[in-house]
């Protein structure tokens, strides 16, 4: 039996960064908001505190903060000729499932994506001609500009306590920052974190080679901070447990300690945990959504929550899944190249090298998400000519550590046995004396990389699993080779005792961990024929449905996604405030 509940103004599906921001802001604007979150309530004081939080078995191996694949997962294949099989354990990417979502276990890297991404097709066609972009590369302009998003980037950076050094203030290049970044109106919320030795060595080496290193901007508070909403941050203690852990010092910008507690203080807001949304409901003519159906996963009770407006703010993959399960928008068909929902799934690529320096002590157990240095000379630097290398996109390179765990982090030179006496001696020798340099690369949209509903496998609710079809294409392999050569050159210039060289990835597999930067599937754009959402992240099909997250990105850049995800959430807040006054499509197709 399904219990029909009383209608509310807004139902929010998933309570991480985007759901948290929208819930807080819309409840403050006077709307009645109900948030439905699959996961449990978790707090710094009860759950992310010492000593329990520093438990690698619980959080890294057993994925305590992540989605449970026994309940729902994806099927995976590399191309349409294969049969997809269910991913029964998490590996390559780790979607979160608690109040706070993946915003609890991220590292904090916060970047501003620029018009290089938002106008990608126009940019490349203008500079290199129409034929430079391969026929199967389905990249397109986003329909939004950096200037439009700039104030919202700032809003998110100040909310999340992003520490960094501006490289371009109102058009003036700033010493010590990233000279290639787009102009910002204000400095970062906080100064950069203290660099670690590995970061200093990388900075020195890349400067010598003529590149432009700068401290990586990150939502790790470099000192105590109160954000514009009044949320209080502690200073980062460099404990080294960023990625996959909640922050014990409340120094990492996370929704569970900033926007969500503020929403919860507001009587207009209600949170229901353990609430699994199975479907978005539509009215008879399909022009509006009327609410959602959900199940309390603790006792199996089913509910219908009617709402004036539905916001999908779950993990990027789950937002797409819900759209497909609800039959909103035409599903994408890669063969006929028709339809839009599921189109342009993208991921990231990357290469890494480990450098071993006999006698240098790096203390890898002390670091923060942002204690690294980065170069963007081959990323948002449009001066880097891709023409002769024949690829679209970019990569950023960084040196240092990010969550080098005392148990799990075991750097040894390639060729060392993987167990036994020799391995033990090697790991004891090199644990302290190794550092890494890595490049994170973009992935361009391709007509065959996409999502749809699996024809065979079902989740615990009897619904089809989502099927992911993905592989690196020639473009990513070329980019990866360029990045590997550069990273190896930088490593060589630092004269290490020995080095594990970087190699380009040529094929994607679901293990081991690579990055939780899954993008696309319900992309934004200027035309309902080629996108699911308009520039305000409003559904072209149902005007009272907004879908927010990295699932709106038409392609994936080399940068981490959370900067634009947070900025677009604030952008959507303003759009919805206008929408409430005059409901209807905000862009006419």
């Amino acid at each position: 039996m399904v219990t029909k509940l009383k209608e509310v103004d807004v139902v929010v599906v998933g309570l991480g960064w985007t759901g948290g921001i929208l819930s807080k802001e819309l409840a403050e604007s006077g709307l009645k908001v109900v948030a439905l979150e699959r996961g449990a309530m978790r707090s710094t004081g009860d759950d992310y505190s010492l000593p329990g939080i520093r438990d690698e078995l619980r959080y890294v191996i057993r994925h305590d903060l992540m989605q449970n694949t026994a309940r729902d997962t994806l099927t995976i294949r590399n191309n349409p000729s294969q049969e997809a099989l269910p991913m029964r354990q998490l590996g390559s990417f780790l979607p979160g499932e608690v109040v706070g979502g993946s915003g609890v276990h991220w590292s904090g890297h916060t970047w501003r994506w620029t018009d290089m991404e938002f106008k990608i097709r126009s940019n490349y066609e203008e500079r290199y001609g129409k034929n430079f972009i391969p026929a199967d590369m389905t990249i397109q302009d986003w329909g939004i500009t950096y200037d439009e998003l700039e104030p919202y980037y700032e809003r998110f950076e100040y909310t999340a306590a992003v520490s960094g050094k501006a490289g371009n203030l109102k058009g003036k290049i700033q010493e010590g920052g990233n000279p290639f970044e787009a102009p910002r109106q204000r400095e970062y919320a906080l100064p950069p974190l203290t660099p670690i030795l590995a970061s200093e060595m990388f900075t020195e080496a890349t400067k010598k080679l003529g590149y432009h290193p700068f401290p990586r901007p990150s939502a790790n508070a470099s000192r105590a901070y109160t954000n514009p909403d009044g949320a209080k941050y502690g200073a980062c203690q460099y404990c080294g447990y960023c990625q996959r852990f909640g922050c014990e010092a409340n120094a990492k910008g996370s929704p569970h300690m900033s926007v969500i507690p503020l929403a919860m203080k507001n009587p207009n807001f209600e949170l229901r945990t353990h609430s699994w949304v199975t479907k978005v409901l539509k009215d008879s003519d399909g022009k509006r959504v009327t609410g959602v159906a959900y199940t309390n996963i603790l006792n199996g009770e089913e509910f219908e929550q009617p709402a004036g407006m539905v916001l999908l703010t779950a993990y990027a993959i789950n937002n797409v899944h819900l759209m497909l399960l609800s039959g909103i928008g035409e599903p994408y068909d890669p063969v006929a190249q028709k339809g839009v929902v599921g189109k342009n799934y993208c991921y990231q690529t990357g290469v890494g090298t480990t450098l071993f320096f006999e006698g240098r002590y790096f203390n890898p157990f002390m670091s923060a998400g942002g204690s690294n240095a980065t170069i963007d000379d081959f990323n948002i630097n449009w001066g880097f000519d891709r023409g002769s290398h024949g690829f679209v996109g970019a990569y950023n390179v960084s040196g240092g550590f990010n969550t080098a765990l005392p148990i799990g982090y075991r750097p040894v030179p390639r060729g060392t046995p993987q167990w036994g006496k020799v391995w033990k001696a090697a790991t004891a020798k090199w644990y302290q004396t190794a550092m890494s340099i890595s490049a994170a690369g973009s992935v361009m949209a391709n007509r065959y990389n996409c999502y749809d509903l699996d024809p065979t496998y079902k989740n615990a609710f009897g619904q089809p699993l989502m099927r992911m079809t993905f592989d690196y294409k020639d473009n990513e392999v070329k980019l990866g080779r360029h990045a590997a050569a550069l990273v190896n050159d930088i490593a060589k210039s630092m004269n290490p005792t020995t080095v594990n060289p970087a190699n380009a990835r040529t094929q994607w597999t679901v293990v081991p961990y690579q990055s939780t930067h899954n993008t696309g599937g319900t992309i934004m754009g200027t035309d309902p024929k080629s996108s699911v959402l308009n520039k305000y992240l409003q559904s072209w099909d149902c005007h009272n449905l907004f879908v927010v997250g990295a699932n709106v990105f038409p392609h994936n850049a080399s940068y981490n996604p959370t900067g634009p995800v947070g900025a677009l959430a604030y952008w959507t807040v303003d759009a919805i405030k206008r929408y409430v006054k005059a409901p209807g499509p905000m862009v006419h197709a």
Partner: protein
Amino acid sequence: MRSNSVRILSAVLLLTAAGLAAPASAGDAARGEQKFAECATCHSVAAGANGVGPSLFGLIGRKAGTVENFRYSPAMKRSGIVWTGQTLDAFLADPQKAVPANRMPYAGLTDASDRGDLVSYLEKATK
């Protein structure tokens, strides 16, 4: 275990008393209030307001590890400390040295004059 941590703390206290740090109450409480921003994400000076850390209301003269409804580490509960200007100063200088295995994720305030200011503020604000 118990006698060990007490002994370490006593040693720290003796050093402090021997004049390595200025007497806590001589600090500048207004500056100390600014320093307290580093603590405020977890600690409140309001009565009963436990957050990530316990409420600091009524701190001076209180036995460590005794605020109701707060989950302390065993180390803090059996530390035997009574909070005074001096014991706070020693604890804040290096929390893990003063009470090994306590749960507070804070590396310590190394500057003695900053510490003096913070302790002066705490002496005033937690009454």
